[in-house]
């Protein structure tokens, strides 16, 4: 099972996890990213490069399938305007080996956080806005996976 969705709407985590559990591997790992409402943030606006995003995420999911013995991978990434508490991204992986499920989940979220063609703009309660700058730390983490 391989599922990649780049979408504006929220998603049903229970349904995603149930589909991964149903593959019979015995182990399902997941990571969910949620908008933090700090420093007066009222919304995060996610812009992406549609022609590129789906193909790039497909490719990195294939990398993960080549590297770990996975029965299933599900990646959902939202775009558009998201308020604090809203889910942004979900990665779920299923495997017979819990280490494979957990490591591939970490690998995919590190990649999504550092290399997926998304840009985030912060909107604050006082009307100010700011584009989030890339963090060198995220780059270093994704490079730690080699490849």
């Amino acid at each position, binding site marked *: 099972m391989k599922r990649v969705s780049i979408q504006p709407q929220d998603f049903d985590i229970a349904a995603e996890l149930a589909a991964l559990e149903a593959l019979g591997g015995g182990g399902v790992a997941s990571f969910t*990213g949620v908008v933090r409402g700090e420093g007066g943030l009222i919304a995060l606006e*996610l*812009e*992406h*490069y549609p*022609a*590129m995003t789906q*193909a*790039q995420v497909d490719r990195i999911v294939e990398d993960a399938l080549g590297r770990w013995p996975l029965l299933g991978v599900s990646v959902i*990434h939202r775009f558009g305007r998201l308020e604090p508490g809203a889910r*942004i*991204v979900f990665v779920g992986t299923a495997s017979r080996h819990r280490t494979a499920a957990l490591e591939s989940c970490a690998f995919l*979220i590190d990649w*999504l*956080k*550092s*290399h*997926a*063609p*998304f*840009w*985030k*703009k912060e909107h604050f309660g006082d009307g100010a806005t700011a*584009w*989030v*700058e*890339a963090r060198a730390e*995220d780059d270093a983490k994704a490079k730690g996976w080699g490849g």
Partner: protein
Amino acid sequence: MAEPTLTIVYFAWVREDVGRDEERIDRPSSDITVADLVAALAARGGGYAQALGDATKLRAALDQRFVPLETVIGEARELALFPPVTGG
């Protein structure tokens, strides 16, 4: 034969400064690099100069693949210019 035009797409603050998300230009000669084209666009002044004046702040993709700015544009159909990605 290459397309007679090159599509340029802009994202995030590059898009905002330039004031558009997409444009088509006459295809430049195939041996010029992304950096050369960025310099030529910045020379238009105004929002272009603001967005594209400092190439160290920019990243690029040719036909939806990340490339270094020194890459020649060749026969690519689409050039994307944007700040470093900030992921999910």
